[in-house]
């Protein structure tokens, strides 16, 4: 343990205390990250619409479930019509189900 210095841990992240901080640079760096996150959320939602709907249906009965279902059912329907949910279904059927069902039995 003796030679591990936590102040010199391997990381390539920029130290926010460094002098190089510049507000203009900051906005330029921020935009692509926000765009990437937005595209990620949108596409993940569409690709996994069936799975998300299944999760919502498993929620306790109540207002939260009703609201979530009313918001998400049209999205799931749209995604299904476009065939986007098939990608996940194919993987689930080909490998996922096998991984889920195989289990050691005495």
């Amino acid at each position, binding site marked *: *343990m*003796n*030679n*591990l210095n*936590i*102040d010199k*841990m*391997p*990381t*390539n*992240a*920029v*130290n*926010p*205390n460094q002098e190089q*901080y510049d*507000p203009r*640079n*900051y906005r330029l*760096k*921020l935009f*692509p*990250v*926000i*765009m*990437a*996150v*937005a*595209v*990620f*959320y*949108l*596409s*993940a939602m569409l*690709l*996994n619409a069936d*799975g*998300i709907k299944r*999760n*919502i249906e498993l929620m306790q009965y109540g207002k939260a479930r009703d609201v979530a279902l009313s918001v998400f059912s049209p999205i799931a329907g749209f995604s299904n019509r476009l065939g986007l949910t098939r*990608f*996940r*279904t194919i*993987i*689930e059927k080909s*490998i*996922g189900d*096998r*991984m*889920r069902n*195989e*289990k*050691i*039995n*005495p």
Partner: protein
Amino acid sequence: MLFPTLSFAFFFIIVFTLHWVLVSRPRIWKPFMLAASYFFYGWWDWRFVGLIIACTVVSHLAAMKMAGEQRPSVKKLVLTGALVFDLGILAVFKYYGFFATSFNGILTALNIQSAIPLFSIILPVGISFFTFHAINYMVDVFRGKIKPAESLVDFAIYMALFPQLVAGPIVRARQLLPQVTHPERCIPMDIGRAAGLILMGLFKKMVIANTLATAMVDPVFEQPAAYGAPDIILAIYSYAIQIYCDFSAYSDMAIGFSLLLGFDIMLNFNAPYFAESLQEFWQRWHISLSTFIRDYLYFPMGGSRLSEWKTYRNLIVSFLLAGLWHGANWTFIFWGLLHGIYRAVERFVETNILKHPVSTPAITAGPWGRLCLPFIKRLWLFHFICLTWFFFRAESFHDAWIMLGRLAHWTKPLAPPMIIAIIIAGFLTQFGDGQRMRNIWNRYAKLHPAWQGLLAAVVLTVILALGPEGVAPFIYFQF
């Protein structure tokens, strides 16, 4: 709130958006981030938010008092009082039942009728982590290594920042406090690394750890007597990979989400099963805990500066307490003891035998020494670690001994062949630790943001399609 859930996805997108909207106005950002972090913690049980707040207020007041005090004796008194308070919370919530049961066991053995009352106390999630945050802050202020936080809110955010709140890493105050004090200087950092760590973390947790747990580890540890040696061996290999994938997954995701918010927190795992010695293993496994124990326990006890025998004592005591930190059970203490004794023996061999001028060349010279010896050392160490995992995972010594006893019964293996493939895949995920994937992260970061988002969504879909339904809690939540 668990990372790989719909509720967290919803929570994070709101916090992420508001964070970047408000970050240039720290006066608004700070209460917002604190409220978001408490909300994240309170999602599990609101009552325990009060515990973090109490721990935060007492620790900060103590730090302020120590910083303004010149007399060493008063500083020491304040530090001791605050440590007793913080460790007292930990002792009551985490260890009361354990100590009461153990003490009552001793009284019964001595035929004494009176007994300490037992209460059913709920263990607050992440209590060991946030008390260690408080301890490192106070001790560093006491030692003069850092100044106290500029305000209570700054310190409260450091204590409760949601990505690392419930299962670490145990980020040092001197690393994170300056970042939360001046959040306006944070920039979204290293998108390639952030996405890589989050996706790798999800893969490790959802596909590897959860599958191994449900398909192999849980059934075998529930009924060890029903299985023979091949299955017991596979079960312990599975557990070795499960616990690595489970815990390092949380750390990976914590670092990844922090990077997306512009915070840089320390690495916690660095391919631990590639270690050749136990010392190296602890430089790669739960780094934030091992360095914490080194800096706040091992060094203050004298470390290796005292006599040889006192060094061994310090090592064993440090590992014993590391074991106790993991859980209130004798099996965890025994696990720590095994590590401590092994490390003491390892140190004895390093300092007294391997440095001997005659023995060194014979062992390490030639191609044998260069190629085979490191491999054999890794294999040996991995099996020693697996041996100790029996005690770490078993509910009691009785169960652990049954499992070890079953190693003598060689029967036809019952485990599905898929388990071996998953163990190998889990072992290979260690290549994702540290900076080993830097080239892939850099390539990803050069893609157009839309492609970055789409690619990450496709990988997430594959992970969700492969993993078992539902999300099991992270193993380290209980610590």
